[in-house]
């Protein structure tokens, strides 16, 4: 990785007098930053000049600041390295807000550097002035305005430290233009220590023992894991732990890949569009062992009907995520990976679980599985979106990095692509940001140049950051865009069909562009696929074009809906499995 390669360059310029702009760039280099995703402007002119003169930094010019933020985000989610964004003041800064909020909701570490107007102009409604520190305060982990050139290096170091430790998140550093021109002696700190910020890493041993004893004594246990297990890179520990315990495992939308989807203990995803077996197991469980999961409303459904007979053990790095929505019986605060290692150690001193104890539970689960809740009509004359994802999974050997946008296609990707490895499934789960998929795929491709990267998107979402096709051409990113084109804002249309008596208010996409011509105009390969029999061949052809971006416009069955489904306001046991079943409108949200 470039981090170690950069060790050589580390602090090469330490002690030298540098301008603020040079310090920004040198700090990033010394931090081991591989890529900076950005877009220039007046307030960052000095910084861009310093980038021009420095050969140790790789700047990626996107076509919109939102694209820069999502690209940095996709890079981070797929590699674990913190993504860096550099944009100008005012509109440059406000354009990244959606990207920052997206990262924030999913706890993705990110460092955003924004240019600001000159110090003496701040507060004067100056040209391209925006109070970005104020604007982003609720959607960053932390942010700061630099007032002295002497503080730039330490602020950047602090930004990475805060972004990467504890519950990760975006940190924004706002730097006025005049400060990037001033000079000072450059020293990049080796480490940071803050009295006000000391996240806890190790779990309390007594709590761990209590939690494990409860898990071992349970007759109907479920291990429920979320994005925290992916962020902590705890997949190995989680798999070893779950196999030793012998309990069923379910992942949230954010947690897919932390436990191998093809494993026999895996129940699939839970929540609104989770599997029947996962949700029924949650409902009937007597013990829920939560690992880096935050009991989000899309997961729990109606809280009053959530796992009514269960007790809860919850491992999380963020104390505020514990007992927020569901009262936890045994809270364990710590890094998921570290705590799971402690668990594995502690299990050596506890009696090995007997398979006997949960055999009835597994029989029950087998029955639920028998419902085959993900089956769909495969004889249709129209292309079924579910089948496209299944083929995609097959043709990529289940090993592609799959990014998605937001909507039905996102749920189908989550349901029908079997993720056996972490950091392969990249989606905006928390904020649900349409427009995320393509730029996130760019970031993922930069971070994993040899990987197959697929962006599963919809005819609505793809248009929200379509300009990034130009970035893909400039940097020759061979992404495969799988556009499940249903001529609808499908997910919204689905709700209108079920809960608003089919009043399709503004969800039909009139004038969908000719995506083939559009891709070609950007210098890429476009394909339009209209027959079910052509899907596999087209996918193979696309993935064989190893050095080209291919936009696959796949015309799918317009009326297809995502099932199973827990209507909002219902509980896990009130799933609707198939279109024929009546949907009881719950409380809409």
């Amino acid at each position, binding site marked *: 990785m470039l981090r170690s390669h950069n060790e050589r360059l580390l602090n090469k310029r330490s002690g030298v007098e540098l301008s603020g702009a040079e310090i920004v760039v040198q700090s990033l280099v010394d931090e081991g930053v591989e890529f900076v995703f950005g877009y220039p402007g007046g307030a960052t002119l000095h910084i861009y000049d310093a980038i021009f003169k420095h050969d140790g930094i790789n700047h990626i010019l996107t076509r919109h600041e939102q694209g820069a933020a999502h690209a940095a985000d996709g890079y981070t989610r797929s590699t674990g390295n913190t993504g860096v964004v550099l944009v100008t003041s005012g509109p440059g800064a406000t354009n990244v807000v959606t990207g920052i909020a997206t990262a924030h909701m999913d706890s993705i570490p990110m460092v955003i550097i924004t240019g600001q107007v000159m110090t003496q102009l701040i507060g004067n409604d100056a040209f391209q002035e925006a109070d970005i520190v104020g604007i982003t305060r609720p959607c960053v982990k932390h942010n700061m305005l630099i007032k002295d050139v002497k503080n730039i290096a330490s602020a950047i170091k602090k930004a990475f430290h805060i972004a990467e430790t504890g519950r990760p998140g975006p940190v924004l550093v706002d730097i006025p233009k005049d400060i990037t021109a001033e000079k000072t002696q450059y020293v990049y700190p080796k480490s940071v220590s803050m009295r006000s910020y000391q996240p806890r890493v190790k779990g309390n041993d007594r709590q761990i023992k209590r939690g494990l004893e409860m898990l071992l004594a349970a007759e109907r246990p479920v291990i429920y894991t979320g994005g925290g297990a992916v962020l902590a890179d705890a997949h190995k520990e989680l798999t070893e732990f779950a196999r030793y315990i012998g309990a069923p495992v379910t992942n949230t939308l954010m947690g897919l890949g932390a436990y191998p989807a093809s494993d026999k203990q895996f129940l699939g995803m839970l929540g609104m569009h989770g599997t029947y077996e996962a949700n029924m197991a949650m409902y009937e469980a007597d013990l829920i062992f939560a690992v880096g999961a935050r009991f989000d409303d899309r997961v729990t459904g109606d809280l009053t009907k959530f796992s009514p007979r269960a007790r809860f053990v919850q491992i999380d790095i963020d104390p505020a995520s514990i007992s*927020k929505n569901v009262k936890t019986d045994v809270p364990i605060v710590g890094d998921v990976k570290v705590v799971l290692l402690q668990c594995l150690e502690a299990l050596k001193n506890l009696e090995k679980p007997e398979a006997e104890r949960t055999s009835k539970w597994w029989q029950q689960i087998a029955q639920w599985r028998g419902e085959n809740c993900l089956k769909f009509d495969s004889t249709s004359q129209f292309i079924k979106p579910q089948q496209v994802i299944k083929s995609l999974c097959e043709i990529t050997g289940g090993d592609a990095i799959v990014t998605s946008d937001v909507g039905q296609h996102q749920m189908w990707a989550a349901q029908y692509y079997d993720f056996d490895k972490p950091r392969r499934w990249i989606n905006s789960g928390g904020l649900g940001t349409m427009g995320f998929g393509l730029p996130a795929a760019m970031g993922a491709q930069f971070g994993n140049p040899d990987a197959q990267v697929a962006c599963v998107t919809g005819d609505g979402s793809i248009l929200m950051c379509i300009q990034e096709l130009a970035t893909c051409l400039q940097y020759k990113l061979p992404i495969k865009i799988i556009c499940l084109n249903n001529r609808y804002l499908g997910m919204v249309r689905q709700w209108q069909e079920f809960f608003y008596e089919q009043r399709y208010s503004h969800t039909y996409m009139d004038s969908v562009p000719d995506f083939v011509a559009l891709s070609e105009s950007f210098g890429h390969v476009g394909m339009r696929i209209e027959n079910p029999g052509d899907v596999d061949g087209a996918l193979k052809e696309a993935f064989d074009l190893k050095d080209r971006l291919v936009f696959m416009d796949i015309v799918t069955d317009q009326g297809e809906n995502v099932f199973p489904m827990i209507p909002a306001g219902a509980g896990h046991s009130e799933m609707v499995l198939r279109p024929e079943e009546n949907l009881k409108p719950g409380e809409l949200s």
Partner: protein
Amino acid sequence: MRRIISVLLENESGALSRVAGLFSARGYNIESLTVAATEDSTLSRLTMVTRGNDAVIEQILKQLNKLIDVVKVVDITEGAHLEREVILVKVQAKGSEARDEMMRLIEIFKGKIVDVTETTYTLEMTGDSAKISSFLEGLKNTKILETVRSGITGISRGKSALRA
């Protein structure tokens, strides 16, 4: 339940708005909020009065702790504590009878008259919220021209001290 929460935070620009923003973003209520420097110039001390059930208060404490600028948080209502608020009241005081009456009230509440004109008195009184309320009750028949309250501050009783 009413709680008094004390927060030590880094004396950085924007720190106060992070706390205030947290309360509005998450829908917690603030009945009063005071903030000032401490003996350590790098730290500010903030006191806020809020209301909520145990689960809400637990979240408030955790969310406050999560703010990067926050060094320490305690709910001082959990133990024995002192609370104080200062109130300044400008009242109409015309004629010797009214003026004598005012003097007696001030005496009872151990307050002070801090400013005088021919027709007004400005009164100062310190106490916990119960005492302030009964003081205001005592002024029921007086014409109040202006009141200002400092907001509540508090400190725990005993030897333990809230420090960084």
